């Protein structure tokens, strides 16, 4: 049995090493954000929260955060509406060519983001949607709708269609049956889809960077361009805030809906 135990411990050590590798940049950023130096250095020299104060007092960062949140909310609401309806239609209604529709809905998942970005840059210039919030929101809905469809479909597959039929037999109209029976049952899938959608939109660079108009700036594009100009601890500070928020959000989502089942 000793060979089996050696294998088990070897496997555990490997898993620990890989998880450490995955967390390494996260830890490094958090440490770098605390340094007193004006340049990026790890381990930090001296400890200060100055960089956090600087970021939170920077009007450009605050504007970018606000803009990203609004954009992500608009995109999420839009792709939830379109995505929940589409998943329901594909799974519960017999639609000829449903497989093709499903493939189209999932296409943005594997499509290069940069191609979607430049295609829309050119198209919006032609139809005079360039630099508009509408155009940007539509672009973000395209890249977030597959995540909603995937999570909602997974949830829908787990519930019995007879429950909705029973509601219909008892006199509920189609929409009433959907909103009072089916929707509450697929709530975890809808919540996971919404969370995915928000994160994907909030994180996006390759599409946003081509479509932002004058006076528009999302947080990740702001950080991206800031890094291209040169790294300093204030970038580490805003990054650390995102790390903490993402961690908290994920922990809450895991306790609430068992988030890892939907990934």
């Amino acid at each position, binding site marked *: 049995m000793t060979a089996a135990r050696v294998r088990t411990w070897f496997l555990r050590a490997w898993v620990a090493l*890989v998880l450490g590798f995955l967390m390494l940049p996260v830890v490094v950023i958090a440490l770098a954000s605390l340094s007193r130096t004006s340049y990026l250095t790890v381990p930090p020299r001296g400890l200060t929260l100055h960089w956090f104060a600087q970021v939170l007092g920077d009007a450009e960062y605050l504007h970018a955060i606000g803009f990203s949140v609004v954009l992500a909310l608009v995109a999420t609401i839009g792709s939830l509406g379109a995505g929940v309806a589409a998943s329901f239609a594909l799974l519960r*209604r017999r639609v000829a060519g449903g497989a093709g529709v499903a493939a189209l*809905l999932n296409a943005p998942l594997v*499509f290069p983001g940069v191609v979607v970005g430049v295609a829309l840059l050119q198209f919006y210039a032609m139809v005079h949607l360039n630099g508009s919030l509408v155009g940007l929101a539509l672009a973000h809905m395209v890249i977030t709708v597959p995540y909603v469809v995937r999570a909602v479909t997974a949830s829908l597959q787990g519930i019995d269609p007879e429950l909705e039929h029973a509601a219909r037999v008892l006199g509920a109209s189609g929409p009433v049956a959907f909103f009072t029976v089916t929707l509450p049952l697929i709530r975890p899938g809808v919540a996971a889809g919404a969370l995915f959608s928000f994160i994907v939109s909030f994180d996006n660079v390759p599409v946003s960077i081509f479509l932002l108009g004058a006076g528009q700036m999302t947080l990740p594009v702001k950080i*991206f361009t800031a890094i291209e100009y040169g*790294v300093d601890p204030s970038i580490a500070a805003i990054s650390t805030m995102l790390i903490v928020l993402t961690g908290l959000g994920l922990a809450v989502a895991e306790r609430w809906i068992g*988030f890892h089942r939907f990934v």
Partner: protein
Amino acid sequence: MTPGSGWRLLAPALLLLTVAFVVPVGMMVPTSVRPYVPLVGITGGFTARYYTRLLTDSYYLEIIGRTLALGLTVTCATLVIGYPVAFFLARTRSRWRSWLTILVVFPLMLNLVVRTFGWIALLAQNGLVNQALQALGVGPVKLLFNFAGLLIGLTHIFLPFMVLVLIGAIQNIPRDVEDAARVLGASWGSAFFRVTLPLSAPGILSGSILVFVLTISALVTPRLLGGPTYQVMSTLIYDEFLARLNWPAGSAQSLLLTAMVLALVYLSSRLARRTGARA
């Protein structure tokens, strides 16, 4: 329940994808064959020069080759590093299982720019990795703006995808099959390599295709770790559209990248169907 109700429900999603995805991407086809004249812009007429240049000029061929080489090495690296992790997470009965899985998911949910930024701090000339190497007596190694840097950064970014796909595949293999092989006298090694590993082949295939496709499409990480000089296909497209303003050339490059991605996805679905039929 009218027959048309399915299409009515699909209408918003289909309209969205048509207007903001299918049509804009399709419009790049005519753009890619228009001649671009510097300081004038896109002119009328027809030219195939952006395609021929892309497929014959050594500058572009090197970038295409580098992009594919990165895709291949990152795929292999994530597979080798990730398989044991996925195997452990799929088979463990530990009560920490879901939280360990969340640790794999966490980097995936964390902003991509932030993750890449961490690697800049690690891989820079005076970064943590070089500090550690120097403490071991190895001179500073150049890890940014070259293949090594992109390989490390992209492997980190896409490892969670590979692990999550493999967990799903390994969970689908009944433990009994392995136990049966052991009972019939197979050593652990031959049970693993002749039973478990082949049965997880569909997961290995779909995980590999996913990571390969994501790697050759990646923009943010190659740009930040490779800088403006060490180009891959997506950063080339980025510069063509935003810096050189040569949209026809950029469209040709975009369509080539798209064709490569779609060909891979198509091939893998063919392959998956064939292995599925044989099993």
